[in-house]
């Protein structure tokens, strides 16, 4: 959407740029509470970027649909009779009523419950009751099809954008975004398990996003899951062996990394040997990926045991078995949608074990996830207080201490201690998306992934 900004005067470029200082890591807390900024985010970030919709396994047959969101715009994502997937704005062209009120299902067409206008699976308006009588035949159905978003897929993951001038999904993802999605498929083709866990947290969506790179909070926030024996923090955190990959448009992957010299040894092993090595490790250790994963994730990406975020709001979890959308619902509310994924070819018992484990990790009753929400809602709440928000967020960890390396595949990454490079990259990209009036300006002004000391 070429701008369409409804709040041109509320925040100008200089004011937006001043909200985050990447040289100190200082973030103005108004980004977590301001209604005007939130409206601008819907227009300049969500309506403009590629947003995750669903995985192809959720749309197996013609007529299968799911309802998803771009910001607060609701879309029907549906496979038509020819097998093509469409992203249709879920609003009747007549009076705006939602055509689809279920969150998923199967349909032959979409009939509006208000006056009975009927749309095909490709969004074409095919039926208008009383067309010849009440409209005297004077209604051009061809101009009143459902509005469509562009939709493209990568590795079976469908994304949609409302911006006709956005780059292709492939280019938008860049090397970091593609590596992040590949993490899900590192052990073979995947399918989404029935059931998306959904809940609402009273927090700004960015607080939920910037937490996913945050390996600093794990031992403290999640201490009780460790004590309860659900997981062993020492086996997953590796605080001194971390990698953050910084990608185009704000994508990043942050977390533990397999050191280069260890990966070199792994590279010499067959898949059978890797399997043996994985089984020999203590329960809960990261699985060693098969040979084919290097082709998918790249020679540096394959070492990552971290969390990717596809900007703005899609989190892929470390093992690639869960993905989470953080859907904005006003400056102080976020809806979390948790998807669970399993390798398609895994035996039923292995799938069951993955699903049972994931049912206990993330999701509102998850043994890890339970303790995150209140940290985020309380941080959001304090951003509403005049004095509290004046303090700013201090995202300075590791600032100026890590040298960006550039891999053979064009990966930009740092390795070292736990730090806040991912968070700083997120907010830097955020200011660039927010201050650009259209895609052309974003392309002209955005930062390339950094080099040198950061």
């Amino acid at each position, binding site marked *: 959407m070429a701008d369409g900004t409804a709040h041109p005067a509320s925040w100008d470029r200089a004011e937006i740029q001043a909200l985050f200082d990447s040289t100190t890591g200082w973030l103005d807390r108004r980004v977590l509470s301001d209604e005007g900024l939130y409206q601008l985010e819907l227009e300049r970030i969500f309506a403009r970027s590629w947003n995750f919709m669903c995985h192809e396994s959720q749309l197996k047959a013609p007529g299968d649909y799911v309802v998803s969101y771009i910001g607060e715009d609701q879309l029907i994502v549906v496979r038509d009779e020819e097998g093509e997937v469409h992203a249709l704005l879920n609003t009747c062209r007549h009076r705006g009523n939602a055509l689809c009120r279920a969150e998923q299902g199967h349909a032959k067409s979409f009939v509006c419950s208000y006056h009975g206008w009927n749309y095909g699976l490709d969004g074409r308006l095919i039926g208008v009751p009383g067309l010849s009588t009440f409209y005297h035949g004077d209604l051009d159905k061809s101009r009143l099809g459902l509005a469509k978003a562009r939709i493209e897929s990568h590795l079976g993951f469908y994304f949609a954008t409302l911006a006709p001038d956005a780059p292709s999904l492939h280019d938008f993802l860049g090397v970091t975004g593609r590596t992040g999605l590949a993490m899900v498929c590192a052990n073979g083709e995947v399918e989404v398990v029935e059931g998306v866990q*959904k809940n609402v947290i009273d927090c700004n969506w960015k607080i939920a996003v910037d937490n996913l790179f945050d390996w600093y909070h794990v031992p403290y926030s999640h201490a*009780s899951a460790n004590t309860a024996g659900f997981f062993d923090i020492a086996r997953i955190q590796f605080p001194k062996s971390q990698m953050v990959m910084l990608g185009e448009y704000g994508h990043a992957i942050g977390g533990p990394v397999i050191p280069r010299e260890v990966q070199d040894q792994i590279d010499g092993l067959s898949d059978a040997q890797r399997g043996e090595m994985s089984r020999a490790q203590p329960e809960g250790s990261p699985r060693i990926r098969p040979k084919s994963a290097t082709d998918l994730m790249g020679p540096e990406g394959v070492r990552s045991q971290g969390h990717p975020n596809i900007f703005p709001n899609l989190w892929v979890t470390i093992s690639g078995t869960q993905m989470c959308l953080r859907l904005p619902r006003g400056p102080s509310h976020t809806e979390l949608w948790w998807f669970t994924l399993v390798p398609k070819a895994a035996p039923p018992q292995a799938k069951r074990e993955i699903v049972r484990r994931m049912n206990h990790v993330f*999701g509102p009753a998850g043994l890890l996830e339970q303790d995150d929400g209140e940290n985020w809602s309380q941080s959001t709440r304090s951003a509403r207080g005049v004095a509290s928000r004046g303090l700013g967020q201090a995202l300075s960890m590791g600032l100026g201490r890590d040298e960006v390396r550039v891999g053979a595949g064009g990966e930009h990454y740092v390795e070292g201690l736990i730090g806040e490079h991912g968070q700083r990259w997120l907010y830097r990209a955020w200011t660039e998306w927010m201050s650009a009036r259209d895609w052309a300006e974003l392309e002209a002004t955005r930062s390339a992934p950094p080099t040198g000391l950061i």
Partner: protein
Amino acid sequence: MHTSELARTRAWADTPPVERAVVQYEVEQFLYAEAALLDARRYRDWLALMAEDVEYWMPVRRTVTNADIEREFTKPGEVAYFDDDWAYLEMRVKKLEAGSAWSEDPPSRSRHFVSNVRILDTQGDEITVEACFHVYRTRLERDVDQWVGRRVDVVRRGGGGFLLVKRHLFLDQTVIQSTNMSTIF
């Protein structure tokens, strides 16, 4: 499976009313006592009421059309909010006891209501009972959460009391309107 659980079995329906009333009273008293332990935050004592083979499950509920109604709830083995056996329930209790379960410190104030209790069947020592639940939770200054739904429990008689063998919780919300579900239902 959900609809079949709605009906009383013939054998139970044909049991003389006075006998049914006694069992009803015993089962209700057990369910109320169990709820009281949770409200009193006596999680370890509550765990003692769980059978070793307990199955504690809350599927995901979805907004679907009548035509797709068989997909309203996820099925066993699919994604679920609770998918616990005894070991997982013990982990939840240990977590609450850890001293670092921040989502429950300060502790929530919860009230577990159990109503519309209907015994559906008895098989040997086991009694299948359907009920409505309403869990009301407040936290911090003004957080309020409410979870309402239907549940199907199986309780097993033994040692002078009952143990819970199965609890299937069918929540009425599809998007959970809460920061978390650190509560036991």
